[in-house]
């Protein structure tokens, strides 16, 4: 009997541990409401809403998830929030109109795209000082940093370039042309590839990181949607970087791309004007921010089906996961 109860106890502990391992929160910035909505990844409900500066867009957590950084674009600041209380701790000097940023793997340096100033600002989050300002193309937006932290990328929307920054010298070492209005960049496959989405061009370009040369390019075609409305923006990779889920903006779909063959395998209907996305802890669910419809669509990654759309604030934009 005691033996049985021990087994039952262990089973319950295991179940609780597994459930805790998968539980978490998705933080979503609401551009028009000046708030962030916090979604529980298990109940798929909004459990908290916190106020932020004006027009919050990019959002990311520190490595230990004790701080959340929010680009308050119209407040010209990157705000640092305590995610446990929702209190704004302080602002970081960000330059004008910060839209997207990326936190360096050293957990200290924040690379911020300043859309109006055509610069990338590097801020030390500990000293709260600007470390460098790097001239890039007109209207910088997409930001990425390689897993080894040696390369940072800024994409400029009007110059139509991906700018390669050496993080040791904080200087550009390469510029590569991409299709019109590049808006998001990500490194994949341990940093050997760098992907850029082009909103107006309607494409996703893959670069070989070592040579900065173009390796592949994908375009999208959604049944019943005019090609002009197919505008790739944010994208994220599944476990093992086998597939990329790509937000197609006003096409209201997420494309599923095979990251090995670069073939588009599927399209999933989500809300209107899908911008960005974030996975849950075990990457079984994907949460997409749908700007115009003001909701977040939850996608089951395995079946590639939309499960639910959750109302958040007005014009949700960025998303980030917190365990």
């Amino acid at each position, binding site marked *: 009997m005691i033996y049985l109860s021990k087994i039952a106890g262990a089973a319950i502990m295991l179940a609780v541990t597994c459930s805790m391992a998968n539980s978490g929160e998705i933080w979503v910035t609401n551009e028009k409401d000046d708030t962030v909505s916090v979604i529980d990844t298990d109940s798929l409900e909004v459990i908290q809403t916190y106020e932020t500066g004006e027009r919050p867009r990019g959002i990311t957590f520190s490595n230990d998830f004790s701080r959340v950084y929010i680009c308050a674009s119209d407040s010209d600041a990157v705000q640092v929030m305590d995610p446990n209380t929702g209190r704004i701790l302080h602002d970081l000097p960000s330059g004008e109109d910060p839209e997207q940023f990326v936190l360096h793997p050293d957990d200290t340096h924040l690379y911020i795209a300043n859309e109006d100033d055509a610069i990338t600002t590097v801020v030390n989050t500990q000293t709260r000082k600007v470390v460098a300002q790097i001239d890039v193309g007109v209207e910088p937006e997409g930001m990425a940093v390689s897993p080894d932290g040696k390369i940072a990328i800024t994409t400029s929307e009007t110059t139509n370039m991906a700018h390669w920054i050496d993080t040791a010298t904080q200087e550009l070492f390469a510029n590569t042309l991409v299709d019109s209005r590049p808006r998001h960049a990500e490194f994949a496959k341990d940093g050997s590839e760098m992907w850029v989405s082009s909103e107006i061009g309607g494409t996703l370009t893959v670069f070989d990181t070592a040579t900065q040369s173009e390796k592949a390019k994908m375009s999208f075609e959604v*049944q*019943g*949607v005019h090609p002009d409305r197919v505008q790739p923006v944010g994208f994220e990779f599944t476990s093992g970087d086998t597939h990329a889920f790509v937000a197609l903006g006003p096409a*209201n779909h997420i494309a599923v791309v095979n990251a090995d063959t670069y073939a588009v395998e599927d399209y999933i*209907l*989500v*809300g209107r004007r899908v911008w960005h996305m974030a996975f849950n802890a075990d990457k079984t669910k994907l949460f997409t921010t749908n700007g115009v*419809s003001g909701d977040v*669509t*939850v996608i089951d990654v395995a079946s590639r089906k*939309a*499960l*639910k*759309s959750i109302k958040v604030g007005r014009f949700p934009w960025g998303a980030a996961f917190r365990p």
Partner: protein
Amino acid sequence: MNRYATSLLAIVKREALRFIHQRERFIAALVRPLVWLLVFAAGFRAALGLSIIPPYQTYITYETYIVPGLCGMILLFNGMQSSLSLVYDREMGSMKLLLTSPLPRWWLLFSKLVGSTAISVLQVYAFLAIAAVFGVSMPVPGYLAVLPALIVGGIMLGALGLLLSSFISQLENFAGVMNFVIFPMFFLSSALYPLWKMAESSQLLYTICALNPFTHAVELIRFALYLDFNGSALIWTVLAATVFTCAALWGYKPSRTSEGRKP
């Protein structure tokens, strides 16, 4: 086996045999909703935006939206088809033979209703299977959960067919049924467009749609397919089924029918 069960089985078997022997009818019953699903819905998928309404939890394509309505369409057409066959039976004299059975007339008519509903449900499942092949699928348990909804809806529409057949004296009059029953019932319902969309254009049309029992049968099917329960739709459908059945029984009263007057 008692005589009630024997007569029920015999009538259901006759319906099934008639259906099997009329392959064109089976194909036509499937082609009609499939044309709507694969042609009409494809053309309208971009034209009609849909918001999230229960039982859906997220955005759906138009194809997905109209599937429950097309299931209802199969039940509706089949209900009317059975009314047509009753008129034909009456003209051919086999109705007279059936109604001279010593069993109560209500039981014979009920058996006829069960037979036509069973055929309708089989057609709906055939349609759902083909729709799934074309990528319009529902949650797997929904295919089982929808069965009671299809039976209730099928009986309601079959009873309506029965009622109509008691008033139609000649086959030629059946065209009127098409114009005055099937089309209005189908188009003034939530089968092709959600009711809030109808309310945007006309409050009167919305009210008519909301009162249409076919709307409630479609919503009952829609909710069941997504493992949800729509209590008011069930009440409306059952109420309509009861009213139509009672009226049909009245319509087939011996004192009213020619069979009754001229045995």
